[in-house]
């Protein structure tokens, strides 16, 4: 009985380890991330983090050096060759949701040393430049509504859906 119990525990643990290792070595890494902090005209995105990790393997493609991955960009290497894993890994931890307010611009300008991070894109730019750039190369979805559905206020400013102009002769 005890042996059976031990075996059962081992099998369960094994399965768990297998499942978890599938998703980048375990703890603290979310399988699914809801990106909704900057939604305005579109619904949030339920981002399948696990699938992207499985497909890409290289965390550094999106997270630069912050996960401890080796960076390949020669400009990044100059400072971040041995930076190691950082406390802040999430996109919104570094990329400002509102990058062009007077305060944000001042912060960006006054940083030390005032070099490469001067030109750090905002959160929305970071998401789209990373996602769309890679999706173009890897034949992923690139249409706006392939990833996030436009909501009512989006339809209103795009004059689309229920707000399509009456003059528009659409077949």
């Amino acid at each position, binding site marked *: 009985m005890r042996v059976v119990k031990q075996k059962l525990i081992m099998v369960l643990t094994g399965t768990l380890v297998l499942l978890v290792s599938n998703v980048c070595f375990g703890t603290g890494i979310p399988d699914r991330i809801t990106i909704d902090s900057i939604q305005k005209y579109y619904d949030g995105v339920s981002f399948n983090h696990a699938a992207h990790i499985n497909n890409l393997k290289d965390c550094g493609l999106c997270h630069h050096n912050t996960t401890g991955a080796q960076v390949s960009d020669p400009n990044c290497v100059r400072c971040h060759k041995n930076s190691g894993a950082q406390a802040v890994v999430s996109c919104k931890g570094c990329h400002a949701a509102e990058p*062009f307010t007077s305060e944000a611009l001042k912060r*960006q*300008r006054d940083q030390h040393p005032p070099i*490469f991070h*001067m030109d750090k894109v905002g959160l*929305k*730019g970071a998401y789209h430049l990373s996602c*769309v750039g890679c999706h173009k190369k890897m034949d992923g979805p*690139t249409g706006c509504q392939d990833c996030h559905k436009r909501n009512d206020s989006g339809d209103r*400013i795009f004059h689309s859906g229920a707000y399509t102009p009456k003059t528009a002769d659409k077949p």
Partner: protein
Amino acid sequence: MIDRRDFLKGCLACSVTAASVGVVGKNAFAAGSFEGYPDAMGVLVDLTRCVGCRSCEAACNNEQKLPDPDLPFDDKSVFLEQRRTTPKAYTVVNKYEVADKDTLFRKIQCNHCNEPACLTSCFVNAYTKTKEGAVIYNSKVCVGCRNCMIACPFNIPAYSYSSPTNPLIKKCIFCYDTRVKYGRPPACVEICPQQVMTFGRRSDLIEMGHERIKNDPAKYVNKLYGEKEVGGTSWMYLSSVDLDKVGLDNHMQKEPIISNVKDFLGMVPMVLSIWPALFTGIHLLSTKNKGEHGDHDHKEGDQQ
């Protein structure tokens, strides 16, 4: 009556004055070229990032409370032709098929020149270059002469021809009234998903633009369009292809448009003040003898 000697003296004095006025005038105008306000804002447009989603057009329409568009802003059929700005659309995105590399898109709007040709061409002073960098206009004083439309090197100001009672010039004002005045970015910049546009102090953006080219020389052509063109513009462009291929004139003059006529316009006051005196002198001299001769003729006539 003046005699010949006095007249020649007068002429000499006049020409000396004219020459000195000319020299002073020229110096004054040369010093008058304007490099832009030191803290003026600008936008760096990176054409390599644009995916042609037309969100900027939608945001502009919404922010400026423009009339409904003819087609929804997600309709991609508009890319079949090259569009320009209209009274209903202060910004439009055009598609450019670039031979060796793939498709590029470029958003067209007012580039907010440091020394705007529209402003200098306007005789009622409707235009203002604000210290924030925006080129705005006062529609209340606009008389609808459309000089600015001819003057603009980028073909931007549009005219509301369809309004029979109050036709006006319409163009992008950098969202000055609602946003830039309060230190917020224009609506198009804020909505852009790809951060094609970077809003910031123009001097910082110039640095940033050159830095991007330096860090990825394979990606960009070595040109920050708008840094020098027509005396510098607040909106500047980075591109992966020659800018001629995306509808920007790569051979645009570096001097502001007003420089083309500054020398001529500088002469106008001189001509107005000196020529009357000069030609009055010539007239008096040339009619002095003629008058006597005429009298003589008259007398002769009387005798007959």
